[in-house]
């Protein structure tokens, strides 16, 4: 499933980042395959969302979260 489908409080592990132009940006922010991810907050209509990974909180848009494939844990 996609990261964008998670509700606040749900956690998952990253499987892959599927984007031609944005994957490096996402990797640079520390969102790496195998890492545990926790959705902290979601704004109006779930966009943007704030996730916690490796102790850091990263904000990103729903459209960007759709690029991140995760596995519910």
């Amino acid at each position, binding site marked *: 499933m996609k990261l964008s489908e998670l509700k606040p409080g749900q956690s998952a592990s990253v499987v892959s980042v599927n984007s*031609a132009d944005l994957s*490096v*940006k996402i*990797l640079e922010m*520390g969102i790496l395959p195998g890492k545990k991810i926790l959705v902290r907050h979601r704004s109006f209509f779930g966009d*943007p969302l704030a996730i916690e990974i490796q102790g850091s*909180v990263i*904000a*990103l848009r729903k459209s960007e979260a759709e690029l991140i494939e995760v596995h519910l844990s």
Partner: protein
Amino acid sequence: MNNTENSWRIVLTGNPNCGKSSIFNLLTGLNQKISNHPGTTIEKKTGSFKLSDGRNCVVTDLPGTYSLYPKSEDEAVASEYLLNIKHSNTIDLVVFVADSSNLERNLLLFTQIADLGHPMLLVLNMADIAQSKGISIDAEKLSEETGVLICTTNALNNKGISKLKEIIAKPAFAFQRTYFSIPENVMPFVSNVQHMQKEFTPYRAFVCAWHPKSLTSLGFNPESLPIEIVKQKSKLTESDTLKRYESINQILSTVQKNSGIIKNITHKIDQVMLHPIYGYLLFLGILFLVFQSVFFLAEFPMNWIENGVVFANNFLTTLLPESIFTSILTEGVMAGLSGVLVFVPQIMILFFFLGIMEETGYMSRVSYITDKLMRQFGLNGKSVIPLISGMACAIPSIMAARNIENQRERLITILVTPLMSCSARLPVYNLLVSFLVEPNHTTGIFNTKGLLMMSMYLLGTIGALLFALLFKFILKKKEKSIFIMELPDYKLPRWKSVLLNTLSKGNDFLFSAGKVIVLVSIILWFMKSFGPSDRFEKIEAKYTSIKQTDSITAIINREKLEASYAGIMGKFLEPAIAPMGFDWKIGISLVTSFAAREVFVGTMATIYSVPNEDDSRKIRERMQNEIHPITGKKLYNIPVVLSLMVFYTFAMQCISTFAVVKKETGGLKWPVIQLLYMTFAAYLCSTFVYQILS
């Protein structure tokens, strides 16, 4: 700066939010400046301090970046500086500041810079925060593994700074670890670059492919890179990034321990701050409080300054012999300067609060909660930081728009930021609002003056959003918009850093605005003191037979001003500005404040300062009593004052903003468009206000 030849030149770099600016402030204190590096467009923040061995150390603070593959302009500035094609900068040491609580991600950039071949020093900042998150780092082991010296510093107190100064002076280790393995298919390009720049490491040559400016200065055409690179650009960066993370994890597995015990209040605070409803209410509440306190707290020092200037002026007038020089000094320079001096407290208080919002990490929350709204206006959550800082000054704010990745959103942000009421508008509003209400008047529990000022800020903000919307429809969308940003942990501000920042901003402002104002005041004094041919003599001749009383002197002075060059200029403009309710005296001020709006107050002061008068009444009172010669009513009545305030809200009137927009957009096109649309909006809105009300 003396003996810069022998200076030790260091560069501060790291991820955004790693506490780099704090360290810069603590290292250099007040010895800092933002300067234009000749020949490039880089805006560097530099400062200096003395090393323990007496050498001068020059520090350059680069914008924070996550990697050497830039996605935005500020990241490009940082990485081009580090690539350092043709040695335009001297880099003796790169001081890499890392957030200890997220070493894995921070070390990514660290390994990239190490591969450029620069001698490095690693600062493990925010060690106290990492500790509270249950992370312990074996700094000695990390130092062995990476081959660089390490210094540990805290986020909250200044612990570690003096140690850092010591380590900076030490020579780096002879052997520094490298992390890069060159992919086969890019070898030809790498050796090609290395052929031109002999001392370049393979990685430094490789990274050049991501930097059009560096390529151009190497003589490459950025458009005609080898096909194997162009086709695989994102693949190459992706695999490079993943390989680096592998090496980092291998190092960290022996160096870092995570007990998993997290004592972190950030999440709890964010439950409220990022809440879909309370979040916005709190944001508005915080802004409201900031502005109320700006006006309330500044009232006292402003009174002292105002009284001090009156005192100094009287003192100078009695002390100095009557001469043209004395007149220039008291009626020109002093009158003009008092205009800037008086609002320095407000500016500093505003910068102080903005500094706190930035340092605590709240500013990025504002980006988060406003992103969705901003998108509707063709902006980005990241536009909020330039827009809010625009309330202090548009110039650094326009540069702050560099971190917006999407070019269209960045351009719109740049175009509308000057509509946010900056601190230079404060003295203008301040003077004008004083015609409308008594200083201590209250509405409910709030200060009426403060409320009126707030509505001017609101007007500017609404204007900025509406024009953003307009530009959204005019400008074509070219690339995808992105919003991925870190929300750093909340932390208490380092007070020393905030205070230093506030002081240096106040300082910058006073000197840059002061220079313009002194110059304009002197020119204006000449223009109002002299007129063409014998006009002045004629006026004096007309009244010689009449007994000289105070009221006659006032009439003579009025007629002289009208006959002076300044008066002629104002009269010439009068028909054009009459629809806004302005007279020729305001016309003079509009002309002089074309280059810098705050000159308005100084100009008014110069126009309304009367020679040879013992009366120490303040300029404000004199203006208040000004009577319209025809209607016999007060000139500064409600419609005129409101119209003027609206004019100053929308008009561009800042030559420095023009210059910075030209630089940031790389040409004259956008600043000219900005000047035109803003002036047009100002004229239209003022006319509307005046015609409706009068």
